[in-house]
């Protein structure tokens, strides 16, 4: 294979057309010369014009070839040439993709087993002068001797995480460039299209592709709805990938609580009733060749109905709604949460007072209580949005600006805070009455009120989702993540590396559960469609080769010999010049000699 160190010089190839163009432009009308002995000229022309035409054609070809060779030489071509008796030292970076998708089974064997076997073949062919680098699922290149690399391969298992092959190859290329030897990155992978991020690589890359299952079903997501159950709730799961319908079930503590049939592309809800408490649940899909993406962990928190009361200042719609929720068992009678337009003790859901003159007093009381948020001037409405609360198609007509704080925004209207939480106080920017918002007259009002009281006001726990091995920031530090098999201590800043295995880790402070870390595989590992070579070259650069049939000799071809062809081309050009000189001289000297 030939590549060029100065490819821009190839632009000068147009100069190769020079001799032909000169030939064409020189075909002008020649001057007329009176000459008496034309008959001798005609005799000579008849005998020698054919030979002259052939020689002129030869000269044209030679001159064009000389220009071509000079331009090619200027482009500094290099070629890899085999060397007899083994190979010259080479720096190899082996990217072994043992991400989640490597756990797929093809032909009765794990894809990872195929990748490891190939890696061993490469290691067996490596010499002591070669330099080896191993890149695993964390994407970090590590220098390794041959025995060390073999030990790493022996312990390798599929992980739940995702490997960005593009980043891994670029990191490997970076270390190879500083190695001083001719280098190549060898990617041992199922070559998932979703695993490649774009970015040019400056060293040759050989992707030794392993066959992946033709179809694969997987769970793209699973989450509890609502986030905090009051007795009964649902788990919403999205099925992705390809293939036919399969059974999907909700497993809570080893007990199947719900079961459905779902096909790829479906979003299904699995209902269950659970007593109060924290539950590490799993959504399970019937297994296929890639088992790791057939389950998804989800944390379910179930709370008893929140004791709540309504003050008249909250308005008649709120009062009626709370009554309905009490009757249906979603709320209990009590004073844990109070809905009012004035501030008092205990947990409060604070609505703006009807009389605007009372806003100032209310804001001073909030400040005195240490709440930084306050009610501002009344502004226009809009469409509310929230990740916790559902509004359906309800809209807001009037609202007070809620300002002064930074954290605890629960819902927004037009991008500015509408419902915020600060400690045990929840501020709502609009009164829940028809002239402020059409929510009280909408079907979404009771679920909204339920979630506002049970999840926003009464709950004080958090749930963080992460991918295996990812660095995550928890809402609070100094907690212990209790899970299987080991508990993880979290430092005071709340930053923690998620476990490599998928699962649910409950955050415990003392005897209380204050939140949960849910670790699930990256859903991008489920699509197993391989990346086409053309797409890879577009993403990484031209020096990328993809094949499922690779010989070990090819792997080491990078270092076999990288011959600079410039001298050869210049030598060939010199030879051409010599031939051209001889032919041209013969044309001038001995055309009619015979």
């Amino acid at each position, binding site marked *: 294979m030939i590549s060029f160190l100065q490819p821009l010089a190839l632009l000068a190839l147009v100069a190769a057309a020079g001799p032909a163009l000169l030939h064409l432009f020189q075909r002008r009308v020649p001057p007329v*010369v009176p000459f008496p002995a*034309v008959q001798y*000229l005609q*005799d*000579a*022309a008849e005998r020698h014009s054919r030979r002259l035409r052939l020689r002129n054609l030869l000269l044209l070809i030679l001159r064009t070839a000389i220009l071509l060779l000079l331009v090619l030489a200027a482009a500094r071509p290099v070629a890899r040439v085999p060397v007899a008796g083994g190979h010259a030292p080479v720096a190899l970076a082996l990217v072994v993709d043992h991400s989640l998708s490597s756990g797929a089974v093809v032909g009765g064997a794990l894809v990872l087993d195929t990748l490891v076997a190939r890696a061993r073949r490469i290691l067996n062919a490596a010499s002591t002068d070669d330099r080896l680098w191993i890149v695993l699922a964390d994407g970090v290149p590590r220098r390794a001797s041959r025995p060390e690399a073999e030990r790493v391969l022996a312990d390798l298992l599929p992980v739940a995480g995702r490997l960005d092959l593009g980043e891994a190859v670029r990191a490997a290329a970076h270390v190879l460039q500083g190695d001083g030897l001719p280098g190549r990155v060898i990617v041992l992978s199922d070559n998932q299209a979703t695993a490649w991020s774009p970015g040019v690589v400056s060293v040759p890359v050989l992707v030794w592709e392993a066959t992946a299952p033709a179809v694969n079903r997987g769970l793209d997501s699973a989450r509890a709805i609502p986030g905090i159950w009051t007795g009964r709730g649902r788990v919403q799961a999205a099925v992705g990938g390809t293939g036919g319908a399969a059974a999907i079930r909700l497993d809570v503590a080893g007990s199947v609580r719900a079961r459905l049939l779902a096909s790829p592309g479906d979003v299904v809800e699995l209902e269950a009733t659970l007593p109060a408490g924290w539950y590490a649940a799993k959504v399970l899909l019937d297994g296929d060749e890639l088992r790791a993406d057939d389950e998804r962990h989800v944390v379910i928190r179930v709370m008893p109905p929140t004791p709540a009361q309504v003050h008249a200042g909250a308005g008649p719609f709120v009062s009626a709604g709370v009554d309905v929720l009490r009757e249906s068992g979603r709320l209990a009678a009590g004073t844990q949460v109070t809905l009012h337009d004035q501030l008092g003790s205990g947990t409060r859901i604070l609505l703006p007072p009807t009389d605007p003159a009372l806003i100032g007093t209310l804001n001073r009381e909030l400040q005195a209580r240490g709440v930084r948020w306050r009610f501002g001037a009344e502004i226009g409405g809009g469409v509310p949005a929230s990740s916790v609360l559902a509004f359906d198609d309800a809209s807001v007509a009037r609202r007070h600006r809620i300002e002064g704080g930074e954290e605890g925004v629960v819902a927004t209207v037009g991008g500015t805070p509408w419902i915020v939480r600060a400690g045990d106080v929840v501020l709502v920017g609009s009164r829940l009455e028809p002239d402020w918002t059409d929510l009280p007259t909408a079907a979404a009002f009771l679920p909204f009120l339920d979630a506002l009281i049970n999840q926003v006001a009464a709950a004080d726990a958090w749930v963080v989702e992460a991918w295996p091995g990812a660095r995550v920031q928890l809402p609070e530090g100094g907690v212990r993540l209790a899970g299987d098999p080991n508990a993880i201590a979290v430092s005071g800043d709340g930053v923690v590396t998620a476990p490599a295995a998928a699962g649910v880790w409950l955050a415990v402070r003392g005897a209380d559960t204050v939140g949960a870390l849910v670790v699930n595989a990256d859903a991008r590992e489920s699509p197993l469609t391989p990346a086409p070579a053309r797409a890879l070259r577009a993403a990484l650069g031209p020096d990328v080769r993809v094949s499922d049939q690779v010989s070990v000799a090819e792997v080491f071809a990078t270092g076999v010999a990288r011959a600079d062809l410039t001298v050869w081309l210049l030598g060939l050009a010199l030879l051409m010049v010599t031939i051209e000189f001889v032919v041209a001289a013969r044309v001038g000297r001995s055309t009619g000699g015979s």
Partner: protein
Amino acid sequence: MDARRLDLLDPMEVAQLGDLEFQARGVVEGFLAGSHRSPFRGFSVEFAEHRPYQPGDDLRYLDWKGYARADRATIKQFESETNLRAMLLLDTSASMAWSGAPHRLTKLAYAQRLAAALGLVLLSQRDATGLIAFDDAVRVLLPARARTRQRWALLAALSRLVPGHGTAAGQALERVTDLLRRRGLVVLISDLLFDRTLAMRLLQYLRHRGHQVLVFHIMDPAERDLGGPPEARFEDLESRRSVVVRPREFRAAYGAAVEAAIGAWRSACRRNGIGYAHVTTDMPFGVALRHALARRTRLG
């Protein structure tokens, strides 16, 4: 007269000295001064008269007894020698009016001077000498005479020659056969750019009639060594035929073609007992005349 020998000067220099008569006389005098005997002599040995010795005359014909008696050198002339009839055939076609360089005479100008010199030599020996000038037809016809005024008539005819058109050597040669009833000398001065086969047939006929024939093949040096611009359309002056060539590429091939043509003329003439002299227009007239003399001597 110039002390230098005009017969050995560059023809262009000679052409710049006076009129045609002056140039011809200068050439002839130089030529005869360098010769040991007269260039042309008759066939017979029957004595006719004496004439004064001229430098270059063959000493075999010096009248030694007379010289001893009168202390005056005279040459014995024989009957048939005075009866030699010579006809100069001069080609005045368009191709003759060409010169390859400004410092050289045209072939016609050179031929004029060469013919004049030949004529003076012949007339000085009292040989009857005539002139036929032709291009595509006979343009000038001066019958052969040996009288004194013939010299002026010959020079005047030569001076008035102008370049013509095509070449019809055959017609001129046929005319010569009519004019020369007795055996004589025919001198053809031409660039020979015409049909060689036809011309040779007529020259052979003249030979059969007992005439001596001498051919001066006039060429400009540029006709032997092709030059010119890198690429040119070379156009014939008479037929207007043309050919486009690059002289650098064709020089050798052209040279070979010219040499082949010269060789063909030379060998054809030799086969038929015809004297052939190749003369270029940069050749001194004396050298050209000696070539002619050598050829004629060999023919006997």
